[in-house]
């Protein structure tokens, strides 16, 4: 009789293990299906850290080139113009003393490789005297 109990216990344990194995396989299968059925994330939705780092570096390169262009120009070199770039869009800010200087700065910035757009936030302030 104790032998029969042992045999039943062993059989029950084996059945449980087998059932658990089946369930685990099933659940893994459904996970895979869910993943394969889910729509692939769009590339433009979110930039990977690498893409974002590259973008930041590209923007820094554009900023450096715009600054160099403004410093090399006889008209704009006289002013301290701030340059910021985000995703190729350059923003110029600071003070200049003529509308021509502001226009010149914008046109120089537009001419730099990698610049997609220029936002001119320069303020014209006539110097006294």
């Amino acid at each position, binding site marked *: 009789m104790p032998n029969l109990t042992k045999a039943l216990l062993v059989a029950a344990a084996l059945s449980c293990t087998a059932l658990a194995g089946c369930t685990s396989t099933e659940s893994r299968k459904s996970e895979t299906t869910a993943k394969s059925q889910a729509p692939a994330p769009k590339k433009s939705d979110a930039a990977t850290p690498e893409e974002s780092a590259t973008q930041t*570096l*590209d923007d*820094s*390169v554009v900023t*450096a*080139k715009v*600054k*160099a*262009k403004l*410093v*090399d120009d006889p008209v704009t070199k006289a002013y301290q113009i701030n340059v910021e770039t985000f995703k190729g869009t350059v923003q110029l800010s600071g003070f200049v003393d003529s509308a021509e200087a502001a226009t010149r700065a914008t046109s120089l910035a537009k001419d*730099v*490789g*990698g610049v997609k757009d220029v936002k001119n936030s320069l303020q014209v302030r006539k110097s006294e005297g």
Partner: protein
Amino acid sequence: MQLKVLCAVAAAAFALTACNKQESAAEVQRDVSKAQADAQREVADARADVKEANADADRKVANAITDHDQDDVAKAAHDANETADKGKEKIVIAQAEADHKIAVEKCDALEGSQQRQCKDDADKTLDQAKEAAKANR
């Protein structure tokens, strides 16, 4: 002696005539098509060279930024702008030379002085385009 002089004059006259010889419409069409294909390839090559040079120059700016060397950043950025300006000039000149080649081939449809005038005009247009490209730098 006189015979030699006569031969030389005759040869020169023949060469001049051959220079401005009118080509048949089919020949002109063939030469123009070839010039157009060459021109397209040369301009595309120039564009590719310029793109590569600009990418190299930008990489140097990026490296200087990564190294946090402000002097190097300013110098590399200045150089990158120079490279870009030279590149624009190179493309404009390549395009002008390409247009010139095609124009000269088209001139072969004309004869004599008209052909010579046509080629002179094409040369003048090329020179003007080159000067304009340099002036725009």
